[in-house]
């Protein structure tokens, strides 16, 4: 499972060779990026069961979304919803910091697009992801 966690939380950072954004170093590390990656890693521990159940899915723009809250026990919905919002703030910060650390803050959108694609490619079978038209698909 640790391998899976690493795959999810840090996997997309190790993809420079196939990145569509060949010019940017997506593995670049700064104290801020390190902290955000650690936060994402921690969130994944708490979110993986909801990703597996389909309650939470990967959006087409590199974020997470509560796809079907009815799969979450009622007394946990607020916490999961808050965790998804928290995770998304970290994702947003990750894309911005990687672009900034590359010396090109204007690359944020490209960094986000590349990550979005890779999160989906590396999603486990059974997880749900969103297509650009908004439709949800199970991997």
């Amino acid at each position: 499972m640790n391998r899976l966690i690493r795959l999810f939380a840090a996997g997309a950072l190790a993809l420079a060779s196939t990145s569509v954004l060949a010019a940017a170093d997506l593995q670049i590390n700064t104290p801020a990026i390190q902290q955000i990656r650690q936060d994402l890693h921690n969130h994944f521990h708490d979110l993986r069961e909801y990703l597996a159940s389909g309650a939470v899915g990967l959006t087409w723009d590199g974020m997470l979304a509560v796809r079907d809250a009815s799969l979450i026990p009622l007394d946990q919905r607020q916490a999961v919803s808050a965790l998804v919002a928290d995770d998304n703030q970290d994702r947003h910060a990750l894309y911005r910091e990687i672009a900034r650390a590359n010396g090109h803050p204007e690359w944020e959108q490209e960094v986000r697009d590349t990550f979005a694609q890779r999160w989906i490619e590396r999603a486990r079978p059974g997880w749900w992801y969103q297509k650009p038209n908004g439709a949800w698909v199970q991997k």
Partner: protein
Amino acid sequence: MKAFLLRLALLLAAAVAPAAVAADLSFSIGAIAGAGFAARDLTLHWGERGMDGEVGEIRIFGKTWRNVRLVCPVFHADLAAISCDRGELQAADKLPLSFTYWAARHRLEARLFPASGETWRIGASQADNAWEAKVDLANANPARLAGWFPVDWPRPAGGRLEGTVSFSAAGLTGDLRLRALAFSDAAGLRAGDKLSGRLLVSAVPRGGEWRWTADVGWREGAVFWRPFYFPSGGQRFVGQGSIGPDGLSVTHGKLELAGVGSARVAGRWHKGALTDFELAATGLDLDGLYRLILKPWLEKGALANLDVRGSGDLRWRYRDEATRVFDVALRETSLKDRDRRFAIDGVNLRLPWEEGQENEGKLAFGGGHFFDIPFGAIQVPVKMKGWQVALPDLSLPVLDGRLTVNGFQAERRGGMWNWRFGGGVTPISMERLSAALGWPKMFGSLSGVLPAAIYDGHQVRVDGVLLVRAFDGTAVVKNLSLVEPLGRAPRLYADLDMRGLDLDLLTRTFSFGSITGRVDATVSGLELSNWQPVKFDARVASSPGDYPRQISQRAVQNISSLGGAGAGAAIQRSFLRFLDQFGYSRIGLSCVLRNGVCTMDGVEAAPHGYVIVKGGGIPAITVIGYNRYVGWDELLGRLERVIQGNVKPIVE
């Protein structure tokens, strides 16, 4: 529907009267329609085995059923009445039922038995253009009504209903008791479970709209209505208002929330938006208010994880989509960060804000702590005009000194708060400050001047020069800015210039060994990301001037340790190892940090290295560093070991 039944009854009655059934009777109707109702392909067969009717398609208030069959094994029809006993309506499901229709009274009574022990009793009648209908529910499952709810509304999913709903041209009344009610919208973001309570409602038509009164008591059960979660009941709403083309309004209402308190509310929703809203509450329990209502909005900010105690009042008037009055009071309130970053006690606050007025409030608190630094009491007036807030000059006791804040002004522009202030710190004993922070015991005092700190909604910028006095020298911070201070990755930029720091005070503080003398230090282009340095050009060098310069053997050893292997060889292989104090003429060390690596240099070049301590006087010592490139983390590790005293002088 009644017209249809009436026609059907008359038809049947005319066909069979006056005798009982002597032979089978069958007939068909192509189509029949009325207000909110249409049916086609009706066939009916009545014989010795009762009545058997089929409808190809029936539509009632927009809902359509196909191939609906009604079987009545015990069927009776005459001029006075039609009745069906132990019947069954067969569509997608089978619905056992009985009904009777009295033609003269235009009255229908039906009993539906969807499940064992569950009864829906429906009565409807019409007389002299007046109609009335009544539904009595016993152990009724509200999920059967789900199909009648708009698609984007939460729908009932289970539970039990008892009670009565009556309709007539004069209005509607309902008295329902709910047990174990469950509801949810399609996404599960507005959902409740195991809800019990009572709903009393009435509505009468008046001039194109309905005037309603309601008393909704929610006694047990949990509701999640993103972002709120109410884990238990104890909520009640009593109110009245209207519903019609202008939307839904509450003219008077009282809302009670368990663990929070009660509030008088009024408002209007029109086209999916809240246009007017008014709320007045006194004596609210701030702990409950924070946990149930405020916390879900605060996410991961500084106020997201508090223990709150105290009570408060709120009056809020929102008219035509803008806040007009916001009057808040907190009494004897304490806010304590669960992560122990800050706490503030004895808060008494009154902020009476009213649009277009100059308002004056007051803020007082008894004290608290910021991280581990305690601060004392304060009481100040707060001036407000529109979205501008100003405070008079403040002086807050901090340890044995004071923190002053001058000319604080805040303004909300474009949805963002902007603020600025100047200020300073009058001398605080470093001994007390270091003890409060759990740092090594420091000597001297800390004081400083802050000309102007400005926040523009994105970054905090210090205009002018921040001046700090510490270690008997001066430190000047220039070009200080803090970007996204509350964001996920705050960044700090600054240039530092320190002059004449007393090395004796400094080295005593960090158990570094003893160095007598003074140093100047510059850190230019400092950049911190998430409070960790990522870039700077730093240099420490002996201050110019005439002063005693002595360095202890332990300090030499520690400096050598910072320089890495190879440094400090001079002391180890010479007779100087027998001495404890040495003279020096200059000390200097620099680090240029880039990409996690510190490029080091000293006061001057040496063969294969650089001079960190240049000897002078008798006895003199020279320390040479040979490692030019040191990882920042490694350097921090060495410094930590030195400060913790883990590095012992080795004298050969």
